[in-house]
């Protein structure tokens, strides 16, 4: 082991990798934004009384649940331009980050859809009635009563979805996007594929710290809201 393992590579690669947190960050934030909107739409569809909408939403979530991220990523990157080329629309000038964002927005929307649905179902329908009796409109009742409680229930799932989004984002290297993992692979290629283990260890360390940070933030948020929950229940 000592013949190859050189701690110096771990230390020197960290500062090279750190600037690329920015790319990973933006990919995560934008995919989370669109994924949340899509997820909300599909959750509404799933909970709606219309059979057609329910069926469409169910098919959508099943398909996404069963697709490995890497397959989704490649289908987005190679498939979308191919489909649009039938209509003579060329996407040659479109940056690859767009396809990465599409793939991961879809993936995230699926997790969010489930999070929203289970959270909504967890809120006691009696709460709505109670809200009406004190004179709130339907919108007010959702906004003041249902939403805060559902959010508390949904938080752990949202946290999981976000962390898995950050982690799955690592696969964007496979289509050549230079994010954290992409940069790690460039560093390794720059060393002629040597000392890969050391670089991957620092990469893992950075991801680990990011995930722990996200967990911290969610812990805080949950703390704030669970206060509200206790008050609302009493």
């Amino acid at each position, binding site marked *: 082991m000592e013949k190859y393992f050189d701690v110096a590579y771990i230390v020197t690669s960290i500062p090279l990798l750190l600037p690329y947190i920015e790319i990973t960050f933006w990919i995560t934030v934008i995919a989370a934004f669109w994924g949340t909107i899509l997820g909300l739409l599909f959750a509404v569809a799933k909970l709606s009384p219309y059979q057609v909408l329910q069926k469409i939403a169910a098919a959508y979530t099943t398909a996404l649940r069963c697709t490995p991220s890497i397959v989704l990523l490649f289908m987005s990157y190679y498939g979308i331009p191919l489909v649009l080329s039938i209509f003579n629309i060329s996407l040659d000038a479109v940056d690859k980050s767009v396809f990465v964002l599409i793939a991961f927005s879809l993936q995230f929307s699926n997790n969010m859809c489930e999070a929203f649905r289970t959270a909504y179902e967890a809120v006691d329908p009696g709460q709505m009635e109670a809200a009406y009796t004190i004179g709130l409109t339907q919108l007010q009742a959702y906004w003041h009563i249902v939403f805060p409680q559902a959010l508390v229930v949904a938080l752990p799932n949202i946290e999981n979805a976000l962390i898995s989004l950050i982690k799955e984002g690592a696969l964007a290297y496979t289509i050549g996007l230079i994010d954290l993992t992409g940069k790690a692979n460039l560093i390794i290629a720059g060393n002629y594929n040597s000392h890969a283990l050391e670089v*991957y260890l620092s990469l893992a360390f950075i991801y680990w710290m990011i995930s722990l940070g996200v967990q911290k933030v969610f812990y805080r948020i949950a703390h704030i809201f669970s206060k509200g929950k206790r008050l609302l229940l009493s």
Partner: protein
Amino acid sequence: MLDYEFLLDDFFIALSGVPITLLVTLISLGVSIPVGFIFAIFRLDKSRFWNKIIGVYVSFVRGTPMIVQIFIVYSSIPVLLKSFFVLLQWDTDIYKLNPIWYAFIVFSLNSIAILSEIFRSALIAVHREQLEAAYSVGLSTFQAYREIIIPQLLVVAMPNLCNATTNLIKATSLGYAMSLQEITLRAKVAANANYNYVEAYIAIFLVYLLLCSLVEYGFKHYEKKLRFYKFGTA
């Protein structure tokens, strides 16, 4: 546009990778269900030392991308194992091992962490009072676990186990990085001759859709059977 003939061929090539995918999944689950369960009990018993160690391990696995874990294990395990064998003075040539062993190791290490979390939360849900109740009717700890706790635990944990299993199946698609001859790699190698990547990924997508739907269906079926326990003991 699309080469449908190749799509069909490649679908069957991808299908031929299903046994390897299932083998890796089953072995990993076979290892990680008992180990994850033991880890979960260790953590509940609040013995500080083990709780900390296992906690760090779980947090690392959950906080880092699967592909990075694969990179790390794939490049370090052989050397580690070799020095381990030398230490034990075993005369085994580790490099004669089939690469599938690396896959067993990577995915087991990953699933142990995931499943120990699932079991831990399930144990919290059924543990304490049930155990005391079992003692009060004169059961030993072993009997209590076998007769009372584990059956209920399975009911509580089943939806999460189903998720973990489909996630594991999807994660094996990253086995390409370890030369694992599973669905994705086979279909992709076949596509290389004519660069039919789009067709290949559609074929791969269909195979995973089929596989995961079947697994989910199986779990749902089994869950229904298990529900018996929940009502039986309620």
